[in-house]
């Protein structure tokens, strides 16, 4: 136990399984999405490789390894090769502060299953997700291709705009609970009720807006403007081949999973559920998976917004609404249990 209290060793012991589980989950998610999309379009999806085609991700990985690694002559070689590394690293870094389970007494945790229980968990999440636009832009710029450049510009514009409702919506749990650490927010919800229901009103709206802004940050339909294959070929990924392309694709799934996990932790009570605390991780997986399914459900049944409609939605509706939500929450906090300090 004393060995585990060293932050380095603790990070290694808890971090390694978290890393492996989420990488495996991202690979599995690619199989699941193809299966899901297939069923929605009255097809079967992958069936050949393994039972139900479940080994398809491995086949994909093998295929990508064999592809020729092409760097366009006009490309900025250093940035072109550097860009694929970051999306996956950043998406995984977000998960470092997520409490996957643990036990609590009242609104204090006696122990938490978390890689690094930072006091500033929410700020860490927002800071890291704010950096996500850079690799996309880097890839778009370094490819020296007009499609990729356009996609990179759009992704920065979109990322910067949706960052604001994302941050403001995340402030609603922070203001309501008076906690900046994710484990503190979960413990508060275990004590007083999930934030999506309580405080009634702002919590629910903030959850919906946070979810929308996360979709925009993760470039999912209806907000996948940077990729927009019908107008920009494949967005910033046009020039990428082989494993570099694979890294981007894997990171997309990891990013979506991370967004689902964060939304569940902030608004849906995270690891809190009706059964004993040992089942905590199960509840978190269940909640995050539900959000994940909804994201792909939207993806395969909805259309993409135009770039200017996207900006309209963000600046003319989401930003003012979230500002009002934060104000209402601040006023309500005076009347909430455990508030008014």
């Amino acid at each position, binding site marked *: 136990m004393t060995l585990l209290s060293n932050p380095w060793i603790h990070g290694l012991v808890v971090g390694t399984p978290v890393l492996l589980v989420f990488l495996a989950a991202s690979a599995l998610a690619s199989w699941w999405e193809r299966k899901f999309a297939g069923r929605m379009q009255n097809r079967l999806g992958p069936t050949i490789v393994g039972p139900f085609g479940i080994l398809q991700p491995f086949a994909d990985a093998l295929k990508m390894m064999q592809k020729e690694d092409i760097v366009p002559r006009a490309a900025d070689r250093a940035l072109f090769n550097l860009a694929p590394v970051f999306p996956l690293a950043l998406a995984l870094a977000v998960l470092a502060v997520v409490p996957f389970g643990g036990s609590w007494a009242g609104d204090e945790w006696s122990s938490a299953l978390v890689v690094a229980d930072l006091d500033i968990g929410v*700020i860490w999440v927002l800071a890291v997700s704010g950096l996500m636009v850079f690799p996309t832009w*880097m890839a778009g710029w370094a490819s020296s291709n007009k499609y990729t450049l356009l996609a990179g510009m759009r992704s920065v514009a979109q990322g910067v705009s949706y960052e604001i409702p994302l941050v403001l919506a995340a402030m609603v749990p922070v203001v309501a609970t008076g906690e900046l650490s994710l484990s503190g927010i979960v413990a508060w919800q275990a004590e007083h009720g999930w934030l999506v229901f309580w405080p009634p009103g702002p919590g629910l709206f903030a959850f919906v807006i946070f979810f929308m802004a996360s979709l925009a940050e993760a470039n999912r339909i209806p907000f996948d403007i940077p990729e927009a294959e019908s107008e920009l070929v494949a967005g910033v990924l046009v020039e990428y081949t082989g494993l570099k392309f694979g890294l981007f694709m894997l990171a997309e799934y990891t990013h979506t999973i991370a967004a689902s996990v964060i939304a569940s932790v902030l608004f849906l009570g995270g690891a809190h559920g009706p059964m004993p605390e040992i089942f905590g991780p199960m509840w978190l997986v269940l909640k995050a998976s539900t959000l994940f399914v909804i994201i792909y459900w939207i993806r395969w049944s909805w259309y993409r917004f135009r770039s200017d409609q996207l900006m309209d939605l963000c600046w003319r509706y989401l930003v003012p609404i979230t500002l009002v939500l934060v104000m209402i929450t601040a006023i309500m906090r005076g009347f909430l249990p455990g508030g008014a300090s």
Partner: protein
Amino acid sequence: MIGTIALSALGALMIACGIAVVRARDLVHAVFWLAAMLIATAGLFVVLEAPFLAGIQIVLYTGGVITLMLFGVMLTHRDLDAAIPNPVAHELRAGITAAALAGALLLGIWSTDWGAAKPAATVSVAQIGAHLLGPQLLAFELLSVLLLIAMIGAIALARRTDP
């Protein structure tokens, strides 16, 4: 011990990135080197046990300032073939300025009695918040009004339609 090593390593990294920023021949490279330097600065705050400052450093500087620079880069034309002259144009004047600044800093470091300095207490985010909204309330509100003015000014400039 680990703290000293980490501080030295981060310091060396920051200096290296800083040199890379001014020596870079490509504007975009310079911007990303600057981003690396700002993240290393955040690392410095982490080692000094000020995680809140580190987070804000990343949100504001890396997230905000670098994005602003990327917008600037996107609005400029990229010269693919033209050899960009070394941006260090005023070496003498820059050297004098840098030497003066370094001298002032070194003087400050040498003239401080470090033995008498007390280790700073770790300050929690809640304490920072209470301080900002308590004793510093006036300054805090003045700053927010200033930011609001800047924002309205930016919108007014952007909406101006005259030629």
